[in-house]
């Protein structure tokens, strides 16, 4: 059975149908991409999956459980993590603290633990730090752990977001335009990183991206939506040759400009 199964998902804002009867499956251990024109409803799909928007109808089944009515924090708890299209770091906090936030849902010390400094609370704190450092190391910015997040260059801020998402120890990672604003070189590293995340950490990846070169290189299967409706799905070649996709999204120009 697929890790994530979206069935007839529909999201309406008043009269606007942002996502329309969308169905798709993400298999465990895969890298999948979602593309489509601006305003097609891609981010809305992520927002529904992570509980930020409440879908009007349909069903989303994650690891065998429906997450239709679940709050964002519970969904994260179940093993889904996301990054944001416009960076949403804790800007005034250090990189380390940012990443430590990911461990919140895997730990449980509360008031008593904090005030009494119990043994288990101390052990937990230690674990949180270890995991956070490990995740920072994984994305390659461990050396900047004590910087305040807002002082990092854009590219590094993106990495903090990835590390933070990884620290929640997810099964499924949703990346919303991770390459926006990155240059060539960084995009290449991003591809490498995504593969490592999948292979070394066994995390399934679901990606939204406008950089077609990157998308085609990294994902085995691509879904294309337009006006919230799925208009195509398949391998990068299939998608690229699909006339509907070319007309709605790619345009006539050559598009292999990435990487």
């Amino acid at each position: 059975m697929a890790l994530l199964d979206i069935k007839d998902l529909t999201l309406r804002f008043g009269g606007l149908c942002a996502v329309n009867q969308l169905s798709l499956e993400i298999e465990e251990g895969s890298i999948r991409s979602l593309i489509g024109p601006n305003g097609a409803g891609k981010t809305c799909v992520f927002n529904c999956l992570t509980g930020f928007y409440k879908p009007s109808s349909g069903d989303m089944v994650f690891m065998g459980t429906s997450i239709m009515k679940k709050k964002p924090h519970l969904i994260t708890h179940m093993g889904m993590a996301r990054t944001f299209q416009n960076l949403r770091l804790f800007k005034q906090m250090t990189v380390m603290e940012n990443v430590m936030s990911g461990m919140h849902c895997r730990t449980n010390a509360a008031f008593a633990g904090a005030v009494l400094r119990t043994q288990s609370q101390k052990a937990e704190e230690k674990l949180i730090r270890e995991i956070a450092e490990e995740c920072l190391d994984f994305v390659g910015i461990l050396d900047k752990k004590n910087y305040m997040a807002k002082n990092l260059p854009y590219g590094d801020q993106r990495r903090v977001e990835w590390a933070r998402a990884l620290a929640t120890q997810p099964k499924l990672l949703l990346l919303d335009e991770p390459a926006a604003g990155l240059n060539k070189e960084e995009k290449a590293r991003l591809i490498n990183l995504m593969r490592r995340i999948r292979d070394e950490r066994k995390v399934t990846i679901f990606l939204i991206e406008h950089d077609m070169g990157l998308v085609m290189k990294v994902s085995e299967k691509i879904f294309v939506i337009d006006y919230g409706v799925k208009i195509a799905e398949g391998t990068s070649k299939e998608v690229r040759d699909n006339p509907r996709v070319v007309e709605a999204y790619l345009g006539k120009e050559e598009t292999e400009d990435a990487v």
Partner: protein
Amino acid sequence: MTTWEIFLQQLFNGLLVGSFYGLVAIGYSMVYGIIKLLNFAHADIYMSGAFAGLIILGFLNPYIGNQWLGIIVALLLSMILVGLLGVAIQRVAYRPMLKAPRLSILITALAVSMILYNTVLLMTQGQYKPFTTGLTHESFYIGALRMTETRLVLLIAALALMLMLHLFITRTMYGKAMRAIALDRDTCQLMGINVYKIIAITFFVGSALAAAAGIMAGVYYGTVHFFMGFLIGLKAFTAAVIGGIGIIPGAMLGGLLLGLLEAFGTQIPFIGSSWRDVFTFVFLILFLIFKPNGLLGRMESERM
């Protein structure tokens, strides 16, 4: 009094008080709308306005008397004066704080409030002052409604001021600029908007309207006092929130609604006037729970 008379009377009372609330609430809302500041000093601006009106009317009395002509001239002069006071306060205490954390500017507002309030306290030695006018309070009836000329004129004046403001906001670029500044100050600068000038205008208008309300209250109630702003400040603030804070028509509507609500709420036997403010605040809380953005407020829609 029959129930019908009480109803009519309270309807009118509610509208009149509500329009005072509305005038003060507009200032809260405008300032909140443009720089997201809960301007604690606004209630004291209202109070200062009343005192300015009293003093100016005293000066004018020998020349043009203290009936409607005198009152109107005094009203206009003190609106200008207090408007300028508002601008000056803005310049000294708020503008340097625009980049600071939002709660810090709340504290400077508080400091300004304390300064204004205590200055008037010192000057009046804490005494109530009579606001003497040459108006008579002879009453007449409109149907079953007992009415005085003063009340009628004040209500009309308050509504007219609100209407003028509404036109100013909707018919000129200033209104749009104010809303835009509220949304994003930096981008406004990139549109060639002199943000500080617009903020200053906002303070001028808001303060002038509060002053107008203060003077009207003085004329209507006949006394002024350094403490007079406090409660109406709280109420107007509430009205602004009910209407959807930052939204100017909302403030007017919220003010009127609150005035009516209080007028009728206190006539419910169980509530009575000792529970009036409890009633107001319970209503406010319930209202916000069910309509978190106020009457005219929109859900802020943010994209992830």
